[in-house]
């Protein structure tokens, strides 16, 4: 509970941002539209994402699910042609507000990508990257962070003897857990996972799925997956995306047992996608 109190304290810089009551949601997405140039990729998205739960985003390729998760930490801004309208409120604050500091948002919202993307540095340097750029320089604290983060990502036992090893020498599954550990190092509030297991073998996938169950005790997790079984296994809520729209958003049990929408049912039962 102490932890959640800390999470609610805001940076000085972001206190003047327009707010909107989000209750116990971490994210409230309000009428979000997004265009790549002329093509609209997201249409009128409305979602409330609850804290300390796992929310899965499912849908066929090209439905906008990856685009959506990247708007949650404003990474879509890296593409010059992207335009957005509507609002995303993170912990009551409008992240599209001009005064909002995007670096602060991303400090609190970690992201794990489709392909494992460790830096071409040692395991140790990968983990301390975040803390270091945010000004933590004390060697003792950094060592502690490395151990805690690697333990948190269930990688400690495998790599503790050789932290100076280059991260590129790890297996794909280990690299992905290293990337999760790298996010944990700055103790985020939310973890965004963009198809984190799509490049991994079944055993590594299982490990990541177990890890997600463990992590949801401390973090709110949003995970994009094209694997419906995975969504069924690990998530509390599921949103079904199709052609840039949210077709249905409900508790995972409900979506998988008795979906309201015919299209959801068709997708779940494997009739397309």
């Amino acid at each position: 509970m102490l932890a959640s109190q800390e999470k609610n304290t805001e940076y000085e810089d972001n206190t003047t941002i327009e707010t909107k009551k989000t209750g116990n949601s971490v994210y409230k997405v309000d009428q979000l539209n997004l265009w790549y140039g002329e093509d609209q990729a997201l249409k009128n998205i409305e979602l409330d994402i609850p804290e300390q739960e796992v929310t899965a985003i499912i849908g066929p390729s090209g439905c906008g699910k990856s685009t959506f998760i990247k708007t949650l930490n404003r990474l879509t801004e890296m593409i010059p042609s992207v335009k957005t309208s509507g609002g995303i409120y993170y912990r009551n604050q409008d992240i599209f507000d001009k005064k909002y500091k995007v670096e602060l948002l991303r400090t609190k919202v970690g992201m794990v990508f489709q392909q494992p993307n460790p830096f071409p540095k040692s395991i140790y340097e990968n983990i301390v990257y975040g803390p270091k750029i945010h000004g933590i320089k004390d060697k003792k604290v950094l060592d502690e962070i490395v151990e805690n983060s690697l333990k948190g990502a269930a990688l400690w036992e495998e790599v503790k003897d050789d932290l100076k090893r280059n991260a590129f020498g790890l297996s794909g599954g280990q690299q992905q857990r290293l990337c999760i550990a790298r996010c944990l190092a700055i103790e985020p509030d939310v973890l965004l996972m963009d198809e984190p297991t799509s490049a991994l073998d079944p055993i590594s996938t299982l490990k990541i799925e177990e890890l997600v169950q463990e992590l949801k005790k401390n973090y709110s997790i949003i995970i994009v997956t094209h694997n419906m079984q995975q969504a069924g296994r690990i998530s509390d809520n599921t949103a079904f995306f199709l052609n840039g729209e949210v077709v249905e958003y409900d508790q995972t049990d409900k979506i998988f047992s008795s979906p309201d929408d015919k299209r959801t049912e068709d997708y779940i039962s494997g009739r397309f996608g």
Partner: protein
Amino acid sequence: MSDNERPSIRKMIEDKASQKGATNAAEKTMPKLFLICAIISILTTFGIVLTLLFETVTFFSEVSIVEFLTSSEWYPMFSDPDYGIRPLLLGTFTVAAIAMVVAIPVGLAVAIYLSEYASDKKRRTIKPILEVLAGIPTIVYGFFALTFVTPVLQSVIPGLAIYNALSPGLVMGIMIIPMVASLSEDAMSAVPQSMREGAFALGATRLEVSLKVVFPAALSGIIASFVLSISRAIGETMIVTVAGGGSPAQGFDITSSMQTMTAYIVQMSLGDAGFGTTVYYSIYAVGMTLFIFTLVMNILAQFISKRFREEY
């Protein structure tokens, strides 16, 4: 996760965030510094154009532009000097033409061999060695032309003067072979494999595929490489300065000395031209002519490779 001795990492990061002055300063100043670097390259171009323009204008206040363009005599050091650019142009283009006679056929043949015939292993061995040919300083080629190629040629062509247009032209051609070869090979390698396979499937020989399929498809890139090479030959300085001599061309006799624009600029600045004299300004007028020719050719090469690029 955090123990009692220290605040959580989250708290520490938040504390640091409020005192991130240095990071913010770097964030604001670095892009400006890099922009300044980028602007320096633009200023260099302006510097070149303005320098040439100002001094050329001074030159034309002393020598009429009509004489510069139409007179067929170039004798700046005479007591009654003549400033007609034509002999220098003639020298420049003659030497460049000799160089192209060597560089274009040989370079193109090398490109076809590397792109269409050579195995991957051969290509990876030959290309770096050819790059060495391109990396040798031009003064070395000049020395080679004067002390080796000219004497060898003299034993074949008895009337050949020590300073002549032929020897530096040939040596310049050898120097430019790698440029033609590598640019043309790039153009041919860019032709998709499926086009070759289509022709092979019809029973064409490798030569037929090379000449009737790949060559036409890569033609714009190949011609662009020729134009760039000509531009390079026109701007080449030390070979002609060392081995080409300092007398303006008297017609098309390639066995005698033919001064080029570049050689004139260097030879005058070696000490003959006092600052502020007409001769001093003449090197800028010649430099301006040289600059215009090479610039036009470079733009032409870009235009050809863009405008006529095959869409695969």
